[in-house]
């Protein structure tokens, strides 16, 4: 664990600022819409570096892996991207939103 306070407090926006100051490529994922019993409310953040480090949560662990993978791509292309996860589509079955809800996640590059 790094000594940096941002990592210790598990605050995605502080982690993002700290990563940017270290010169890392960083993306921010934000829940922009929820349907049903989504585990994290709209506005929740997950910050991701180009190396796949992350802090925060958009789903309580269900879809973070998929979001991190897409975020690395977003950092590379420097363009925002929106993803939707839900029990109805196959991706969601694979990554598993166990609660039965659906969420829409906006991933944007920072800096």
């Amino acid at each position, binding site marked *: 664990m790094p000594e940096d306070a941002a990592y210790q407090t598990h605050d995605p926006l502080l982690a993002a600022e700290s990563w*940017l100051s270290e010169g890392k490529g960083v993306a921010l994922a934000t829940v922009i819409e929820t349907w049903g019993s989504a585990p994290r409310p709209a506005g929740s953040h997950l910050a991701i570096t180009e190396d796949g480090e992350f802090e925060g949560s958009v789903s309580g662990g269900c879809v973070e892996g998929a979001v991190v993978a897409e975020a690395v791509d977003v950092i590379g292309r420097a363009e925002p991207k929106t993803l939707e996860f839900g029990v109805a589509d196959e991706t969601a079955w694979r990554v598993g939103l166990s609660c039965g809800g659906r969420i829409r996640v906006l991933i944007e590059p920072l800096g």
Partner: protein
Amino acid sequence: MKASILNQINEARQRRKGAVTVSTEAEGVRELFLEDAMPEGLLGDATGKALRTGKAMSQEIDGELLFFNPYVPPVRFVVIGAVHISQALAPMARLAGYEMEIIDPRAAFATPERFPDVALHADWPQDVLMNSPLDAYTALAAITHDPKIDDPALSAALEANCFYIGALGSRKTHGRRVERLREAGFDDAAIARIDAPIGMDIGAANPAEIAVAILAQMIAVFRRRGIETQH
């Protein structure tokens, strides 16, 4: 999102100031508005609503779908007085999601036995508040009935512009309090910010019901803040 916007969000959160970002799916975060510089018109209505409710939301404005994400500092709820009402109020406030702390210099009242699981300061308000100053996201309820304890806390709350300031006591008691605060240099507009007698008028008849009335009034003021000044 620009790094400068991210820095401003973090700075606002650190200073306990409210802020709202506006995003589109195509651009990500487009703009940041701080609570003391909110926009006008429809955009202002939407940012104001997000800030008051503390909930992120989407709204179409001028044919464009915008996402509003508020960053609202957690409310601090300071109660002056380790009294009966506070014993009922502490668990109610916790259930409603508000962090409550109690200040009372009377060590016989402010005991952990009477107040389990509550931040308790058995010290004078002016001493406690010097170390952790009040701010605009703090609510203060002064309910000791003792001017020596309540008055310095009420003065500090007025100076810090706490969003809610309530004081226990009859109209007559409050009349004398108003005189003392005038002598201390507060004008009538400032003094009028104090809700007294404290609590929403529900005909509360015992300490627990007064606690409900105080909590309801504090929540009402918090959720409706800024509405009257916006239009």
